[in-house]
């Protein structure tokens, strides 16, 4: 026999390590056999179960935050616990940064850091934080099961029973993904909960997957990230939203979709019961959604536009409303909604006809970026929504039509029919402070140089974009048959920006004739009639009324 590698004999190293840490941690439980740790002992607990250099998943979501555990982790003895490798969806709280400032953590792999973007950039430039990679959510979740499996997970739930079963309520978000990755590779799972109860409404995480419970006595911090006050929607948003509805949704018959959180998409949602209804689109468009429970969807739901909504997370104040609309939302036997970021990301990636987002900057190729120099904000989930998944095999009418029109990409596979997801970007030609949105060079390049990234942080690559919508019109980029034509179409709707001023009026007319570019006039939309009076709701209060009082907006949005 040729020489062979020595056979491995040890098979339970991780398990042994787990047992050791479990024992050390158990000295802090309130009574033998219990999983409950007094909040006052939480720092000691973390010092007992976390080792320097560990990979730690600290639950940081778009909405709910394991804020108490984050604070405790900031207070561990840095001599004992340091050099941690943080893996988390969102760097959201000041305490998430504090870990790096104090030297407790050194390396981060994450998806999104917009709430702390300036501080993250500063810490990177100061050498306090090293970034492994910035991911999309699905990528990061994928890596939890490959090469970024956490040693310790610090998660948050609403309540637990003594056996450790967790009830997450509507904001389930990342908890199942993190706990599954950690626990099944013999990691330690610590959960902060508001309180411990005898009987849970439902079990979101089985008790045997949870090692320690910290009853904090208050709800964890939860950000109402997807609440947009309709009062802030402008007439320009309404104009662009009308164009999307009439020029894209109606034409393609977009039934399933994901919306970003901009005011443009908010305007679309609020025009469904009015403008879209008047076009006879009810039942024909926007019936199935993979979005967070945007309060601005309430009027469309109430008018019967919406059949189903699956969500990444919940939204503060929407709990009662969702519980009372179980035909629409994914509601458990207990009566409350359950979200799941991983599932919803998969759905938004593979199973929808269209994604609509907005961006800060776009170049002549249609590459778009929200990157701003001096800020590291990450990607979140948008790139997974905003792309055509090559793995998709099922068909819908919208998908097929978009595929037929995709002149340039169709050429690569011969005569085989194939569909395409619509990826729509809404961009005002000038942003806040009259900064042009169309640029020759994206700020992402500058950020790449500043932060030492290998590629510029592009949110959506130009080849993914099928439609660009500005106040000047729609560019049906998928209908272009050459790069030159795409560029002309982009310039044709780039208005009075430098890039837009390069447009050749004759060429623009030809693009309009071919239906590649459509102005409001081409679509039969009167610019002078685009105003917010068309919105089904024009204030948070209108939304409350639409919901029959079931929507209870967070205090910061109640202006009456």
């Amino acid at each position: 026999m040729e020489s062979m590698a020595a056979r491995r004999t040890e098979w339970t190293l991780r398990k042994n390590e787990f047992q050791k840490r479990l024992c050390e941690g158990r000295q802090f439980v309130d009574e033998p056999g219990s999983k409950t740790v007094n909040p006052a002992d939480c720092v000691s607990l973390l010092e007992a179960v976390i080792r320097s250099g560990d990979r730690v998943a600290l639950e940081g979501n778009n909405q709910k935050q394991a804020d108490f555990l984050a604070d405790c982790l900031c207070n561990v003895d840095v001599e004992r616990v340091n050099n941690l490798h943080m893996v988390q969806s969102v760097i959201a709280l000041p305490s998430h940064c504090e870990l790096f400032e104090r030297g407790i953590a050194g390396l981060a792999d994450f998806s999104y850091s917009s709430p702390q973007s300036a501080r993250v950039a500063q810490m990177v430039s100061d050498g306090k934080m090293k970034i492994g990679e910035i991911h999309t959510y699905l990528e990061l979740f994928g890596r939890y099961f490959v090469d970024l499996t956490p040693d310790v997970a610090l998660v948050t739930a609403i309540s637990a029973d003594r056996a450790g079963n967790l009830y997450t309520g509507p904001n389930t978000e990342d908890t199942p993904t993190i706990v599954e990755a950690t626990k099944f590779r013999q990691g330690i799972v610590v959960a902060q909960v508001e309180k411990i109860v005898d009987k849970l409404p439902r079990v979101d995480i089985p008790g045997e997957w949870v090692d320690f419970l910290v009853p904090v006595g208050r709800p964890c911090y939860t950000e109402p990230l997807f609440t947009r006050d309709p009062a802030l929607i402008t007439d320009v948003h309404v104009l662009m939203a009308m164009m999307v509805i009439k020029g894209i949704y109606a034409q393609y018959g977009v039934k399933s979709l994901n919306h970003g959180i901009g005011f443009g998409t908010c305007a679309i949602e609020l025009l469904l019961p009015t403008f879209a209804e008047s076009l006879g689109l009810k039942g024909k468009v926007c019936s199935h959604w993979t979005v967070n429970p945007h309060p601005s969807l309430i009027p469309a739901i109430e008018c019967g536009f919406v059949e189903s909504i699956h969500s990444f997370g919940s939204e503060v104040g929407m709990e009662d409303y969702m519980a009372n609309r179980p035909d629409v939302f994914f509601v458990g036997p207990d009566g409350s909604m359950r979200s799941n970021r991983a599932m919803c990301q998969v759905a938004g990636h593979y199973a929808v006809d269209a994604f609509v987002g907005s961006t800060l900057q776009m170049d002549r190729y249609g590459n778009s970026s929200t990157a701003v120099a001096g800020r590291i904000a990450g990607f979140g989930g948008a790139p997974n929504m905003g792309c055509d998944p090559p793995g998709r095999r099922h068909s819908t009418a919208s998908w097929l039509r978009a595929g037929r029109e995709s002149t340039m990409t169709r050429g690569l596979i011969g005569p085989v029919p194939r569909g395409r997801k619509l990826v729509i970007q809404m961009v005002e030609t000038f942003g806040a402070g009259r900064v042009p949105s169309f640029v020759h060079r994206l700020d992402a390049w500058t950020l790449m140089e500043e932060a030492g990234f290998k590629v510029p942080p592009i949110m959506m690559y130009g080849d993914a974009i099928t439609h660009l919508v500005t106040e000047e019109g729609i560019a049906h980029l998928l209908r272009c048959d050459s790069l030159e034509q795409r560029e002309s179409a982009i310039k044709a709707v780039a208005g009075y920006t430098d890039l837009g001023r390069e447009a050749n009026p004759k060429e623009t007319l030809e693009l309009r004739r071919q239906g590649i570019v459509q102005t409001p006039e081409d679509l039969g939309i009167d610019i002078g009639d685009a105003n917010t009076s068309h919105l089904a709701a024009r204030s948070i209060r209108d939304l409350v009324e639409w919901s029959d009082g079931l929507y209870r907006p967070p205090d910061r949005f109640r202006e009456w």
Partner: protein
Amino acid sequence: MALERLEFEFIGEPENGENDWEYLHIGHVMSGDLEILAERLPAQANVTRIHVTTSAVGFGSVWQMVIDEFMATHKMYGCEIWINDDGATPAVVKLRLWQLVREMSAK
């Protein structure tokens, strides 16, 4: 820090609408927005003067283009138009001008 004042003048045949208006006023001066006051000149007048007062200095050429487009589209000859602008984007300027025209036809 001073305001910029821009003047534009157009000459052409007024369109024969049966609209019955003396003056129109829309909008508010607030960050990123503007007010427009349009006053009708005597019936035979074929000149339109547009007076822009803006806090955003140095955008004269963009104003020229937006207003050219407006006049080319709507041919509002025979008016005096006053604009007070607090840094509106071209998108907002255009929208307000078009809203003015709609207001006119509603009168």
